[in-house]
């Protein structure tokens, strides 16, 4: 289980400044590769050295240069970088939940919830773009990562596109949804914000606070900090993977809830 505890690695105060390590402490050696859109000749190699120098690599050794197609050259450069890294100045954006593998998600649900976790997903309003909800829910998933349907311990109901809010509430009730996922791609006249507020209001009206499913919205144009304003529990932006959503579900519905109880 890869727990991202958010704790900084404890660094002895004396070693807060480090440099890259080739084969000797402090040698600062790095290796980079890149392509320049120039035909391979002496000048191209000079251009690669110039780029490396500007990256702080000095001296820079072009150890490999290879023409690729018309007017492109690929370079491998080794050299000493003159930058220092101050470990005390490292700032990390913390994810407030642990990223779990599919196997770990299934195990936690099985052992601690002792039933399948029910997820209902939809695109609401007139939005016909199921790209987002399908990337998260379909087994096919996105970028090589399988969608939530792939998780044995998740029961997924994908309602597809152009679902009305009352239909969504009804289905969430029928499926005893632990979480409701809503995707919004179209942002014309802030449709995504209006739709989301309408959805969260409908759930607040239809179900008491303790019985309400976790409300999650996602889409490329959402501001992830607007949860309170939109009345939802979580907002996921561009580039979110199914694994992150699954990990969040486990965190919000099982791990955190138990910890608070």
């Amino acid at each position, binding site marked *: 289980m890869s727990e991202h505890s958010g704790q900084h690695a404890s660094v002895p105060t004396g070693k807060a400044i480090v440099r890259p390590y080739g084969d000797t402490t402090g040698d600062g050696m790095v290796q980079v*590769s*890149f*392509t320049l859109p120039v035909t391979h000749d002496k000048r191209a190699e000079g251009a690669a050295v110039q780029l490396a120098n500007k990256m702080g690599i000095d001296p820079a050794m072009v150890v490999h240069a*290879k023409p*690729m*197609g*018309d007017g*492109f050259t*690929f370079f491998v450069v080794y050299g000493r970088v003159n930058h220092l890294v101050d470990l005390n100045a490292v700032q990390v954006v913390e994810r407030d939940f642990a990223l779990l593998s599919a196997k770990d998600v299934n195990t936690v649900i099985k052992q601690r919830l002792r039933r399948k976790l029910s997820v209902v997903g939809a695109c609401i309003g007139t939005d016909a*773009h*199921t*790209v987002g909800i*399908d*990337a998260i829910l*379909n*087994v*096919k998933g*996105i*970028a*090589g990562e*399988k969608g939530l*349907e*792939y998780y*044995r311990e998740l029961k997924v109901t*994908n309602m*597809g596109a152009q679902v009305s809010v009352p239909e969504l509430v009804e289905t969430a009730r029928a499926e005893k949804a632990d979480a409701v996922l809503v995707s919004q791609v179209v942002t014309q006249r802030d449709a995504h914000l209006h739709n989301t507020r309408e959805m969260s209001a409908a759930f607040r009206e239809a179900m008491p606070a303790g019985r309400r499913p976790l409300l999650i919205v996602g889409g490329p144009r959402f501001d992830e900090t607007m949860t309170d304003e939109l009345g939802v529990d979580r907002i996921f932006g561009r580039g979110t993977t199914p694994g992150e959503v699954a990990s969040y579900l486990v965190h919000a519905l099982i791990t955190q809830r138990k910890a608070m109880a």
Partner: protein
Amino acid sequence: MTGKLDLDPVLVARARELARRAGQPVVDLARSHTTVSVERAVLRLAGVTGADPDGIPWVNRLVDAVAADVGLGHGVAVPVFDALVREGSTDVTLLAQKAAAGSVRFTQPTGRAATAARSAARKAVGAGIRRIDRRRAERDRLVKRHGDPAQRPWIYLIVATGDIYEDIPQAQAAARAGADVIAVIRSTGQSLLDYVPEGATREGFAGTYATQENFRLMRAALDESSKEVGRYVRLTNYASGLCMPEMATLAGLERLDMMLNDSMYGILFRDINPVRTFVDQRFSRQVHARAGIIINTGEDNYLTTADAVDEAHTVTVSQLLNEFFAHEAGLADWQLGLGHAFEINPEVPESFRLELAHALLARELFPDAPLKWMPPTKHMTGDVFRGNLLDGFFNLAGALTGQGILLVGMMTEAVVTPWLSDRDIALQNVRYVLGAAGGLHEDFVPAPGGFIRRRANQVLGEALDLLERIGEQTLLTAIAEGTFGIMKRPADRGKGLDGVAAHEADYCNPATDILEAAA
């Protein structure tokens, strides 16, 4: 001659018989139903082109109008050509426009009117099929002129920028760098669109929309490349999802050379209704057979969701089913790019020997099919150096087991969409392995009683067990109960079911009639 694995010919024959038994009820189902997409494909063959101002193709508008008036079960060809005869016109696209405006009523004619409509429909659809025939003859001529790749496997490379005008120079560069087959990945989610977008497109999600115009542009560009590199460069796209029959038709009309076309992929991975898929599947395969297109099946996908060792036999079962459905639809062995993949966890002891056993099993079971060998994806990490090594072993396994089509693996799989340099390094990897060991399959004969032979026979045995179990129920039940992958897909659920109709007694589909008469 018992081959390299000493497979028992009785068991192999039994496996094929069981696949036939499992598949036949599905074929019967496909023969007695139609779908909106099959009917739209018929209209495309009959010459309906273009889209309304909202981008909805006229074939969609016309099929919807006919279905609203007389239902789908008679087939749209006769009501459409009956209306055309009554209007005294020959322009089907114009009729579609009128139908969309509500100024045409459709009826299912009888007697002499029905005969006239049938004959007109057959003539129009026949012209479309003759266009596909001409495209096929054109391919044969170009292959003769420019030649096939010098080596097997053919090198298959993907481009996917979302912009067809950006894809073209990338595809041409890839051809110059050694690619024999170019695949243009589709935009995410296109498989779930119940219409084919129109025109050249410059924006997509992680891929480029498949449209007739994009097909035409890319094929023309690769014809130039073929001339330049002195070998015929093939083009691939996807006949999958809700518009599978139309994609196959457009591919035939625009001389695409290969199409991804799996019998169960859409059901399992896209939650498309099983009946819809099998009906669409059969029609699309009949078109591919006629067009001389090589299909690529999607068995690699099982291994990305399930364990590649434990579930190896599901690949064999799916290959046997795909073979049965393909033969039934008229495809010849040379058109069967049956899929499989190098997806065993490299941490598993003897993982490479297991891969060789599985790959050789497919080779021996389907000796005349140009098997499609898919690279590692599941166990590729951000460690690009290790990834390059793994791809080298994948290439070696392809050479050792005589694979027909090799999809080039990228060391940056799961990191970025391939850069120019990633593709160059990947092709260098392939060239090295094929150059150094391209003929090694001649010498590679696993030892009798050894690990590889035992493993291959074990997988065949497990495949037989699974086929026996399917035979006791039906394929639809097996799919409904989650036999393939872990997904349960009942026949009365999934996307696209509302676009399926049972044939009426007078169902008429001139395309199927012509395609089946030839087979």
